[in-house]
């Protein structure tokens, strides 16, 4: 298996809302197993890029290609989020979007819907096939929740979880669909330094455990510089710079637009 094979490639993608060109001619490439950061000032278009990569928005022009687990190449510009999820791209949201009135376990189970083997007839009559399906899902949900330290909350409603655990549950749910690529939109937003540190360790752990390629948006520079192998800096909808964290820290344009002079020293 070649390590440098690109798994997701965005070439010259742009999106226009009314008269506003939110993202223009963006090029991005993720190779298998990478952990890439996407940074930039507020309003730079980071989440818009995420929404295009995950199918929520369709780019006005340009092309996104994705190579799935079986090495088939898909052109994914016009695919819906649900279709993208099925071929292996999962995401979380900046403002948490859980299924609030459902239990923690059910939240995760929903993401495993595509792995069902029972058809509606099995379900209506509760045949052994249905029970086997449910058992498989329950086991998988339990092991995932255990990984995130949410085992004891299994039967609680998602909306009653504390904020930090809601964030964790969202990542947990994204993992349940067995993705290849995980897009994390500000996973550490609103967390204290201790929680952020734990979360980062968790992210590096799941990346190895599940052989994931991760793209994350984050504002916490310490964290981004600490774990990301490569960074893209976005400003006014364009890629301002890209490269290794050390290079980015020294890049005068990035310092001017985003990091600020004092951040250049952060290691």
């Amino acid at each position, binding site marked *: 298996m070649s390590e440098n094979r690109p798994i997701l490639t965005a070439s010259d993608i742009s999106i226009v809302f009314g008269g506003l060109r939110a993202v223009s001619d963006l090029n991005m490439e993720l190779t298998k197993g990478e952990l890439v950061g996407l940074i930039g000032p507020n309003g730079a278009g980071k989440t818009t890029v995420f929404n295009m990569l995950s199918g929520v928005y369709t780019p006005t022009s340009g092309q996104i290609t994705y190579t799935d687990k079986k090495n088939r190449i898909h052109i994914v510009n016009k695919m819906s989020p649900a279709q993208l*999820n099925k071929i292996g791209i999962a*995401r979380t949201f900046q403002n948490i979007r*859980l299924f609030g009135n*459902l239990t923690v376990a059910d939240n995760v*189970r929903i993401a495993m819907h595509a792995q069902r083997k029972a058809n509606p007839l099995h379900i209506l009559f509760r045949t052994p096939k249905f029970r086997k399906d449910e058992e498989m899902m329950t086991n998988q949900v339990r092991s995932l929740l255990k990984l995130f330290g949410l085992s004891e909350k299994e039967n609680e409603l998602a909306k009653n979880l504390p904020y930090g655990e809601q964030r964790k549950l969202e990542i947990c749910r*994204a993992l349940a669909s067995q993705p290849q690529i995980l897009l994390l939109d500000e996973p550490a937003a609103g967390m204290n330094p201790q929680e952020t540190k734990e979360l980062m360790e968790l992210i590096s752990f799941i990346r190895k455990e599940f052989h994931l390629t991760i793209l994350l948006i984050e504002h916490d520079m310490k964290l981004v510089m600490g774990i990301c192998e490569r960074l893209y800096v976005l400003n006014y909808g364009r890629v301002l710079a890209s490269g290794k964290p050390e290079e980015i820290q020294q890049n005068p344009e990035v310092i001017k637009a985003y990091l600020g002079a004092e951040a250049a020293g952060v290691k």
Partner: protein
Amino acid sequence: MENIHTHNRQTRNTLILTGIAAFAIFVPFLLIRANLINAYTAYVITLAGINAIMAISVNVVSGITGQLTLGQCAFEAVGAYMTMILAQDAGIPLPLAMIIAPLVAAFLGFLIGFPTLKLEGDYLAIVTLAFGEIIRVVLVNLKGITGGPNGKSFKFSFLRDSLDWGPSLSYLVIIGALVLIIVFLQNFLRSSYGRAIMAVREDEIAANSNGVSVFKYKMIGFIAGAFIGGIGGALYAPFIGLIKPELASFNNSINALIFVVLGGMGSITGSVIAAFVLTYMQEFLRFMQNYRLLLYPVILILVMLFRPQGLLGMKELSFIKCWDGIPGLIKKIKSKKLAKVESTKGGDK
């Protein structure tokens, strides 16, 4: 070891539920048959059963799938008229007609759901509202087939056929159908499909990003609702024996919606309970004549003030938990009695 345990529990729970369902169907049936429950009460209970089916139909669309529907009784009317046309004019056997009619209703649900549910927002409310009116107007004007505004009488009527069997038979058929609907619906909702539909209700964007095709599951929910509504109509026709276009009216649909709002959006048991209580109350309060209509809004206002999520909210009444609670309750009562006896004994001394 644990496997055997869960297996035993499953069998036990199934037995409890089957027992309760059989009790709800057969005990009143025998009582009605033996004339211990009079024909009028039997009529009211059975009508409540149909109302409960309609309430479930609305609940599947509005409470479970999260799409507001204001014309669900149009599907009831389609089910009722189709049953009548098929059995009376086309000469198809009644039971078969009662199976085909809900399928026609479900097909109409597909037709109006297909363009509407692709949109986000409350468009379904407007479209179903219009659909109800269209059905009503069509039924009024197709005099040759439907009998026009005065309705048409159906030659098969459980009540008219024989006063001896009629009330008990209609109870058996209608409450039996209600129980079957509840069982199948619960099986469906507590499965991967049911969870997918509820995910769409909770958050469309998140559901979509987690592999749940929003449009498809909205359609499944809406068509299931239309089908159940059709069953309600198919049962209504041979029960009442006279069908009027008013069945499809806005008022009727709103009535069904009220059951759901009172019982709790998303709670099947809640809407069934609300349907039974409100239908019975309407009959019970007949001595108040038209003033009883005033009571409805008062109840609605009170519920909205003190329990805005409805009687049961999104929860379901669990028969198994009730059953498990019985031994504890008996113990409690016994210990209370004992305490009372002891305290009186103490008083004697």
